[in-house]
């Protein structure tokens, strides 16, 4: 059985200054909204955040950016955020950009105990400078090391008291691989269920990867609302 915490502040209280944190989500979809808000309240500093994006100016990881809590941001696309641009230009924030598939695989490998792997992404580009390239069957590949984190903050639709998680639609994104690669994984879930109430065949993240759970209500802000007229 995994602890089900009742306060978001308590859920993150062992995250200290200088921690490396994986944060699930793609854009604003599938982000652990309430855990991010708790990190802002805790005002922990010098964080290294690994997440595909960095939120927007007034929501998600953008809140931690605004509050000057992030020392280094690792992601694949950070263009939605003016404050990000300002802090990078002023030298307040270090940014590392990684191809999205490489980022995902580095995290997956981290959770799976694979120290490094080769991928074609980035060969012949600025990111390959001073990096190990190896040729297999006539094609060049870049050596990439796996990544783990002190903490992973993920969000799921459902979680049971064994820590098993089920995600909803494209809110799955980076959450399962981050759950597996964090030394301490904290899952913010929309609904908590008793052990046995979730179908074992439908579990996306087995509970072994999850250290604690907390239930919360999300705003689920929409970054780009695109609609069509009734057909």
């Amino acid at each position: 059985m995994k602890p089900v915490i009742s306060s978001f502040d308590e859920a993150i209280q062992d995250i200290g200054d200088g921690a490396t944190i994986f944060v699930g989500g793609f854009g604003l979809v599938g982000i652990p909204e309430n855990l991010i808000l708790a990190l802002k309240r805790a005002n922990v500093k010098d964080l290294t955040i690994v997440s595909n994006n960095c939120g927007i100016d007034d929501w998600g990881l953008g809140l931690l950016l605004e509050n000057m809590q992030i020392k280094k941001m690792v992601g694949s696309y950070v263009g939605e955020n003016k404050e990000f641009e300002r802090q990078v230009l002023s030298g307040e924030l270090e940014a590392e950009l990684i191809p999205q598939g490489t980022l995902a695989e580095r995290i997956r490998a981290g959770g799976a105990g694979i120290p490094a792997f080769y991928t074609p992404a980035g060969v012949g580009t600025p990111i390959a400078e001073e990096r190990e390239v190896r040729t297999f069957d006539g094609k060049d590949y870049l050596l990439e090391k796996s990544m783990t984190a002190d903490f992973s903050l993920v969000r799921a639709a459902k979680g049971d008291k064994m820590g098993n998680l089920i995600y909803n639609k494209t809110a799955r994104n980076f959450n399962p691989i981050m759950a597996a690669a964090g030394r301490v994984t904290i899952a913010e879930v929309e609904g908590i269920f008793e052990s046995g109430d979730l179908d074992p065949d439908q579990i996306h993240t087995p509970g072994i990867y999850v250290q604690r759970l907390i239930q919360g209500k999300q705003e689920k802000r929409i970054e780009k609302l695109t609609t069509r007229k009734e057909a």
Partner: protein
Amino acid sequence: MTSDKAMQREKIAKRAEKEISDDSYVNLGIGMPTLVANFIPENKTVVLQSENGLLGTGPFPTEEEVDPDLINAGKETVTTVKGASYFDNAESFAMIRGQHIDVAILGGMEISENGDLANWMIPGKVVKGMGGAMDIVHGAKRVIVIMDHVNKNEEPKILKACKLPLTGAGVVNRIITDRAVIDITPEGLKLIQVAQGYTLEDIQATTEPDLIMEENVELNAF
């Protein structure tokens, strides 16, 4: 965007749609490539992959259908088609890197005569990130770049060598612009089609490398 510009994008997207065959898996890049989906006829079965973790991307939702947990890789709200599936990002790029995607259609800033693509970074400007482009150009069985033939100063975007930092080296198979369709071949750039309103000479004059022009180049093709 002026209506001329919008019409030009539509023309390129319509032509690019013809590259998609029935029963194929396709990844469309953000921006103009996304427009290609609007021109896929109903009798063609195409499964669109969104690299954030969706196979079977459908049209934009009606206001009632909007689901904040359902977006494409451009972070736009979408729907799914029947038979769609969701997966995590590692799985998504495994299917990309593992060459399971038949065609990827991406935008471009510059392309060289050996198929180098630059589309993610302009030195001196703030770098927003490459997203999935560096993985996709190496993963799809066929990589098609769609873009304007010349930049806003009327200078060629198809060059002997790219000046901008690369997204991938030697990765592009075909270029579709508002003026022409050009293939990257081991012998060099081969002109396949010329759009209405342009001559062979017009295309060569706005393309830096020498083009291979065989007798079967299609004129007034689109």
